[in-house]
Structures are given as C-alpha cells and as structure tokens.
C-alpha cells in the first residue's frame, strides 16, 4: 500500500525492464531467428536487472525513518515481518514485470505456448529473486554505495534462477519439454522461502543493532 503512493517507482522499474529488453534487438540486429533464440536470456537478464533496481528500497525507507527499529522490537518473529516485506516488494515490483513480459516476448517473435512458459517461469522465479535480494538489501542497509554493492553481492547468487528460468523458455523455444526446469525453479523457490527470510532477519539485526 505504501509503495502504491509512489507509483513512479513501480512504473520506472517497469519501463527499465522494457527498455533494457528493447535495446538488445537494436544492438544485435533485427533478424527474427536470432532474436527468437536469444529472447529467453534477454528477457530473463532484463528481469534480473529490473528487480535489482527495486531491492534498495525494500528496507531503506523504513530504516531511515526508524520504522525498522520498531519492527525489530515487535513481539512477532522477525522472519515473518521480513517475509511480509519481501512479499510486498514482490507484488509491487516484480508482478508488473511478469505481466508485461509476454509483450516483450511478442516483440521477440515467441510463440503463444512459449509465452505461457515465460510467464510461468517468471512467476516461479521472481519470488526467488526478491527473497535472495532481500538478504543483500539487508546487509547493505545504510551503506554509502549500497546500490552497486547489492548488485555485486546478489547477482552471483541469482545465477541458478537465471539458468533454470531462461532454460525453461529456451527448451520451449526449441520444442522440448520445459517442465524439468520449472520443477527445479519451484525447488529453488521452496528452498529460498525456507532459508532466506531467516538470513535476512539475521542480516537486519546486524545492520541495525
């Protein structure tokens, strides 16, 4: 709800996603075949970068006005609070990406079936990005160069998500069954759902103390 008051943030993330993905055809050339083969990777990398943009805001505002310290003092377990915040971040920053992604897929000449796989893979993968990213956001809280630092910390950890997410779409483009990739993405989602709120909570305690 609070994030909705600053719609510009949500929209700018969305436009960033669209613009980054649109830059690739301009840089590579308009051949449909080539574009179709690189589309999965391009859309996924663009989604990765766009979700990075909004990470810095997950805890920063609360940290600055002191809300975060109040949240740390609440009787509820901290990882629940963290899970709530991350869920909100996912809803406001990543779900719009999932909905706009089929449009980008059309630009790259993907088939209807592949677009469905793209949306499913993004739906499974983007929560993992938010969850892992929140660890980085909590660790870099209040540091001067925190935005660049988040990228360095979090992007290597995103690699499995990228591989399986783009892999699912790629498999669908090539006419294979994308299900194994999607199952693995689901497994990553479950793992990160279990571990990362806990790690984020620990990181928050360290950063705020």
């Amino acid at each position, binding site marked *: 709800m609070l994030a909705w008051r600053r719609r510009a943030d949500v929209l700018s993330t969305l436009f960033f996603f669209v613009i980054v993905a649109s830059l690739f055809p301009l840089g590579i050339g308009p051949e449909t075949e080539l574009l179709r083969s690189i589309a999965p990777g391009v859309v996924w990398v663009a989604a990765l970068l766009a979700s990075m943009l909004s990470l810095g805001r997950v805890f920063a505002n609360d940290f600055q006005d002191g809300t975060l*310290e109040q949240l740390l003092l609440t009787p509820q377990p901290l990882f629940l609070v963290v899970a709530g915040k991350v869920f909100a971040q996912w809803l406001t920053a990543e779900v719009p990406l999932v909905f706009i992604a089929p449009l980008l897929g059309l630009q790259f000449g993907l088939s209807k079936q592949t677009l469905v796989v793209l949306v499913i893979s993004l739906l499974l993968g983007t929560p993992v990005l938010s969850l892992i990213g929140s660890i980085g956001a909590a660790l*870099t809280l209040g540091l001067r160069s925190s935005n660049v630092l988040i990228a*360095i910390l979090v*992007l290597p*950890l995103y690699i499995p998500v990228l*591989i399986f997410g783009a892999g699912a779409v790629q498999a669908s483009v090539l006419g294979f069954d994308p299900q194994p990739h999607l199952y693995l993405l689901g497994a*990553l989602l479950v793992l990160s759902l279990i571990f990362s709120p806990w790690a984020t909570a*620990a990181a928050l305690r360290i950063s705020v103390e």
Partner: protein
Amino acid sequence: MGHRGSAQDIGRINWQPFDFGPREATKTRRRSTKNKEQSTTFLRPKTKVQSPFIPMNLYKYSSPVNFYPLAGRLIPWFAIPAAILFTVGMFVGFFIAPADFQQGEAYRIIFIHVPAAWLGMFLYVLMAIYAGIGWAFNARLSSMMASSISITGAMFTFLSLVTGAFWGKPTWGTWWVWDARMTSTLILMFLYIGFISLQSSIEDPRRADRAGAVLAIVGVINIPIIYFSVQWWNTLHQGATIRLLQKPTIHGSMLYALLIMLAACWLYSVAVVLIRVRCIILEREQNAARFAEATI
C-alpha cells in the same frame, strides 16, 4: 505509522543520512558494558572459562593480542618450508617430470593451476567456517582470520583462472570456454569479490565481520546449487565440446611435483594469512597491542 511525531523519532530522522555522530554515541552507550568486558579481557586473559578438554593456554591465544606474537613466531615455520617446497616442486615440475605426449610442455602450468584451483575452493569454505565461528561466538580473532583468508582465496581463484587461460590457449586454441568448471570458478571469484567489497565498505569492523559471515554462509549454501546448475546448463547448451584435462595415466614424477606444489601453496597460504591477520590485529587493536607489548 503512528510513531511519527514522537520526539525520539524526529531526532532519529535528523541524524540519519549524513550525521553519524549522535547515532554512534548511542550505539557505544548501549554497548558500553560489552566494551568494558572486552577491554578487561586484555588485561587478564588467563581468567577465561576453563574447559576440561582444552588446556587453558589455548584459550589464551583466542585473544587477538595474545595471538599476535604467536603468529609472528609461527610465520617463519610456514614461510620457509613453503619457499623450499616451491623451489623443489618447480624443479621437479620443470626438469624431472617428462613432457606430456598429448600436450607437450604446455601442461606444466598445471603444477600451479591445480593447487591454485583447489585452494581457491577450499579457502572459501574455510573462510565461511571462520566467519561463522566469529559470528556465533563473537570471537573477534576468527572474524579477522576470515577477512584475512578472503584475500588469499580470491588471489588463488584469480590465479587459477589466469593460468587456466594460459593453458587453454595452446591446448584448446582458445583463452576461454564456457565450460562448467571454468564458469563456476568464475562465479566463485565473484563471490569472493562480493565478500571483500562488502567488508571493505562497512566502516564498523564488528558489523563488517557479521555481515561478511552472513554473506559467506549464504554463499556456501549456494555453491553446490550454483555448481550443479552451471553443470546442467553447460550440458544443455553445449553438448560435448571440450572436456577438461583428459586424465592420462599420470606419471609418477608429475604426481610428486603436483603434491609438492600443493603442499607449498598450503604453507604459503598459512604464512600469508598469518601475516595479514597480524596487520588486521594491529589495525583494529592498536591500543591493546601497545599495552601488551609494554607489559610483556
């Protein structure tokens, strides 16, 4: 958000982004008891908890100030054998081991490449263990060891990438292949860089230690996932192109040279890590160290 408007929070808003002065002050006030406790342990290290299993004088060395002279005494014991073994290993590797019948002389770079790659991986785990101990038991020396190890580990990972490229050019005809092992080594390098840059951008050393510990542990959990996903990605995209090092039945002297070089790299790492940890102790515990020197 009903808390806005209370005097305390207005104060907090004003302090936050630029003026760290008052915040630091409250922090030190809050932790003053802990600090007092820490500083008195310098004065009387022998009154620590006694365990029935570990003799007391080992506990003594968990204090950075007491460890400092011990590390100084230990360094030559590792550095000198390291230098000797490097020379011996290089000699065996370059002059005694025969040339490989497939790869010719170019294979000799594995005598540095393989130990570097092993140490790069192993030191990350070691670093995470030290960082975890430092975080869990609030042991400063362990955290210092972790940050000291991180640099050596990153150096070895970088070395293994560079020597791998030098080896790949004559044998494979290319500097770089997106092979599973090479890619995961590259990612390991990124993880090291993340750890080092996180620690160096946090000014409060204790926060840097703990934040680094969280990152290192998350990284350790992720390493197997990253490794297997990269391997799978590789088989999916590339099919069978070039396999790393078709192991020929390794010649005896090659194996000896490799093992000697491995031991040399180990000893070197220990020596360098100890030297660096001494620097870190000096940096962080200046006053306490001076005190110790004055009394000893």
